[in-house]
């Protein structure tokens, strides 16, 4: 089925938050700190106050009546800076004015005096003995960290995730092959094309916000807690989102917009510029030390990983990213010993949060490079070493977690074949594969309502959001399948927390699986209802009634759904309402989880120019191991998008920070892939083993390919003779590595 939102989007009718206009609405602009770390000495707003058109100015002093700190993992972030700024770009004040230009001019007219503090600009600086502390207060846990009891802050380390299984040191000491290296992963900007945007309205009805948020119910909870309003009085409306990829997960620009609207007494709209969104959230840069032990014939024995994730000035989703990275660090192999120590580190840079396939993207490539190095030393092929060591379905991925629910060896063979693994190649061409797992699904709480209208059409209400993945189409298809009616007659629109039922979040590849399951169950309740009504039409033989083509059938006789509904209500009005939900059943806590293991698998063929260091990605292949593809075309599209983001992440995307200043805060200097970067060949294989927990055996997708492709490019470049330990693989970096290798004794 074609996307249900195609016409709306092609015609320019799809509305995004930045297109919204509310009566009496003002425009907001944020004044941001130029310093990475400084004490605020004074704020003089008199010139701004005097400007015609300025309605309200918000500073930290306006927040004395509330506890103004938020953060779903760690409550460490003030709505606007209070006394101290901790990163360049941190909001210091916000202005609401009758038009955007006035708001911007007024923000510029505010005079802030700062007293500079020492900057902790890098992970190394943050971990150095006696390092300046980015935060000196005790950690306060947020409401949605899902990580058990948070330990105390340890210097600039706000969270640690560890795994310690087996006698790692003894295994390493006895191993024939030991591979070890240090790895560097860059900070990356998600670049959803639509920047963070919010319209907020505060009145006696409560707080209403139209927001670019992926998790409306979690934002609702944070806004309710911040402003001390009952949950039912906070209304979060999410129309179409112009991409998310994690950048719009959890709470971002909503609190400052609400606080400004509260002060102004009128609705306010804030639309970030790109440079502002770049410092609103980003992907964690990371450094890691990874070691792998193996036998001389390529049997993997132990892995030991230390990793440091730079979460910037505020934790945001850093603890979860760190934990997921820790889980991904060993790789999906049969280890006899594993040690992982992953730390989430504060620095004076922009806060880091979620970005598609977080954790797995960070560490899979490093581990996979080492698997290939073991294979090389053992004299076996990259595919063969994985075939021997990969976990099989039903084996434990980690103690206490869900056993593996995917056929990794099968997936690997498919991706290698799709790439053309065994074809001839010249020495400057490299081929690589990479395999990993991502704990997916987040917390399994979703609900849905399906309403069947008197005309026999249906409406699906869900709280997960349409970021572009096509969930509205998928939900209509799921409900249509259950209700035996065309999906085209089923409508699914945006989220409005006042009307759509609760859904935890939109991310971690969970919507089709969990919200989809809720939709399936809600539709099923209506199916049962329709059969009940039909049983009054043909009493005595309910077992012989079936639903087909939008009607109930008993032999050759039929009653359409509108006829059945009219029979129930005695007139041509009324509505059938079905409700469905998913919640933790048995185990399935977020910490133990996951809901399912998302397969992160990719293959790549690259060409390395030894003179210039330029790497060209010629071919890619991915496998979408989705259990059951509700809409195969949309599954492929997810992998294609993730592949391209993987290419950007691997080849050139990198936020360049010097002394806490982001040097490339625009799209001229921060380059993302264009259509010219599209490889000549790319393919996506869909695997349907019906082994997922979602509707009809489905499980999520859309993230795995990103981590898979980064790893595949890394192993392919190594296969061409240039093992790289620092991403992205810019020509300069690759060229330098080639020179180093020439000098190294082999």
């Amino acid at each position: 089925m074609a996307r249900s939102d195609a016409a709306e989007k092609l015609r320019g009718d799809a509305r995004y938050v930045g297109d919204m206009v509310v009566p009496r609405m003002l425009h907001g602009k944020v004044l941001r700190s130029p310093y990475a770390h400084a004490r605020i000495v004074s704020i003089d707003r008199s010139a701004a106050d005097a400007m015609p058109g300025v309605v309200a100015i918000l500073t930290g002093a306006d927040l004395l009546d509330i506890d103004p700190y938020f953060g779903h993992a760690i409550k460490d972030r003030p709505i606007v800076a209070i006394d101290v700024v901790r990163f360049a770009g941190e909001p210091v004040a916000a202005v609401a004015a009758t038009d955007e230009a006035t708001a911007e001019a007024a923000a510029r007219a505010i005079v802030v005096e700062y007293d500079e503090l020492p900057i902790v600009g890098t992970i190394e600086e943050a971990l150095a003995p006696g390092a300046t502390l980015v935060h000196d207060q005790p950690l306060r846990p947020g409401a949605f960290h899902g990580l058990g009891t948070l330990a105390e802050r340890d210097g600039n380390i706000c969270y640690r995730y560890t795994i310690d299984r087996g006698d790692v040191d003894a295994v390493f000491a006895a191993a024939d092959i030991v591979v070890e290296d240090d790895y560097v992963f860059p900070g990356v900007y998600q670049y959803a094309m639509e920047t963070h945007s919010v319209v907020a309205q505060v009145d006696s009805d409560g707080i209403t916000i139209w927001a670019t948020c992926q998790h409306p119910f979690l934002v609702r909870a944070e806004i309710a807690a911040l402003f001390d309003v009952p949950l039912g009085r906070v209304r979060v409306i999410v129309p179409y989102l112009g991409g998310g990829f994690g950048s719009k997960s959890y709470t971002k620009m909503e609190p400052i917009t609400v606080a400004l609207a509260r002060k102004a007494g009128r609705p306010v709209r804030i639309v970030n510029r790109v440079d502002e969104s770049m410092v609103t959230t980003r992907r964690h840069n990371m450094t890691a030390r990874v070691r792998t032990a193996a036998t001389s014939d390529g049997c993997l024995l132990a892995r030991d990983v230390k990793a440091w994730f730079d979460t910037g000035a505020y934790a945001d989703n850093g603890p979860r990213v760190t934990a997921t990275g820790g889980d991904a660090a060993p790789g999906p192999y049969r280890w006899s010993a594993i040690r992982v120590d992953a730390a989430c580190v504060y620095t004076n840079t922009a806060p880091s949060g979620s970005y598609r396939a977080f954790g797995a993207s960070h560490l899979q490539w490093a581990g996979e490079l080492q698997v290939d190095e073991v294979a090389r030393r053992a004299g076996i092929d990259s595919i063969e070493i994985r075939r021997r060591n990969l976990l099989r379905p039903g084996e434990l991925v980690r103690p206490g977690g869900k056993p593996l629910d995917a056929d990794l060896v099968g997936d690997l063979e498919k991706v290698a074949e799709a790439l053309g693994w065994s074809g001839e190649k010249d020495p400057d061409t490299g081929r690589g594969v990479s395999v990993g797992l991502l704990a997916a699904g987040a917390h399994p709480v979703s609900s849905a309502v399906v309403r069947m209208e008197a005309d026999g059409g249906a409406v699906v209400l869900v709280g997960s959001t349409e970021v572009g993945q096509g969930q509205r189409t998928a939900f209509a298809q799921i409900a249509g399948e259950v209700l035996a009616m065309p999906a085209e007659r089923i409508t699914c629109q945006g989220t409005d927390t006042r009307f759509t039922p609760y859904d935890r979040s939109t991310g971690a590849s969970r919507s089709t699986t969990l919200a989809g399951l809720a939709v399936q169950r809600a539709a099923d309740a209506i199916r049962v209802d329709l059969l009940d009504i039909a049983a009054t039409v043909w009493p005595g033989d309910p077992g012989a009634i079936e639903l087909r083509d939008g009607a109930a059938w008993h032999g050759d006789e039929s009653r359409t759904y509108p006829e059945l509904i009219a029979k129930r209500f005695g007139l041509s009005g009324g509505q059938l309402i079905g409700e469905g939900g998913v919640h933790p059943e048995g185990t399935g806590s977020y910490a133990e989880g996951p809901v399912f293991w998302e397969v992160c698998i990719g293959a790549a063929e690259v060409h390395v120019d030894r003179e210039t260091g330029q790497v060209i990605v010629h071919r890619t292949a991915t496998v979408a191991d989705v259990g059951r593809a509700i809409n195969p075309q949309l599954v492929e599209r997810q992998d294609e998008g993730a592949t391209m983001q993987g290419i950007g992440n691997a080849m050139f995307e990198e936020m360049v920070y010097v002394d806490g200043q982001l040097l490339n805060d625009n799209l001229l200097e921060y380059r993302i892939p264009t259509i010219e970067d599209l490889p000549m060949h790319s393919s996506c294989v869909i695997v349907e083993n019906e082994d997922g927990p979602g509707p009809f055996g489905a499980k999520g997708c859309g993230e795995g390919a990103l981590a898979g492709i980064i790893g595949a490019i890394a192993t392919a470049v190594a296969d061409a003779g240039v093992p790289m330990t620092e991403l992205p693989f810019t020509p300069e970096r690759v060229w330098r590595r080639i020179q180093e290798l020439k000098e190294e004794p082999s």
Partner: protein
Amino acid sequence: MRIALELNGAQTSMDIEPQEFLLDVLRDDLSLTGAKRSCDTQVCGSCTVLVDGAPVSACSYLAAETDERVVTTIEGFRDTPAFEPIAAAFTRQAALQCGFCTPGMVLTIHALLEDGELTDEASIRRGLAGNLCRCTGYRAILDAVSEVVAARMAR
């Protein structure tokens, strides 16, 4: 200053500030929100509209420059016959996800097709390099445009 232009087929005149950009006038004054703002620096193409048939980045194009000229936004283009084949190919290929880049992409494609600049895969890659799409990874867009090009050539 006062300008007079043909906007989406209708003669329009309006007062603007000399330094105002076309995108602000379209979105804020005329409520034509099909053109989107993203990079604001002439890189992404999400704000693309046509001026005398040529694609321009409205975020960086002075509204004053449209005086006496013909401006077409997606709100005008969508009701012309040329819209249909492009939209149909995009729909068939699911060449859009969030849709934020889509109106600008469609207008650029139309302008390049009219100029005969899209003939093969290489020309599509060249022609669309100024329109970013973060969601699709471009494969489906390339396939959709290839379909439209092939259909035009077969005519």
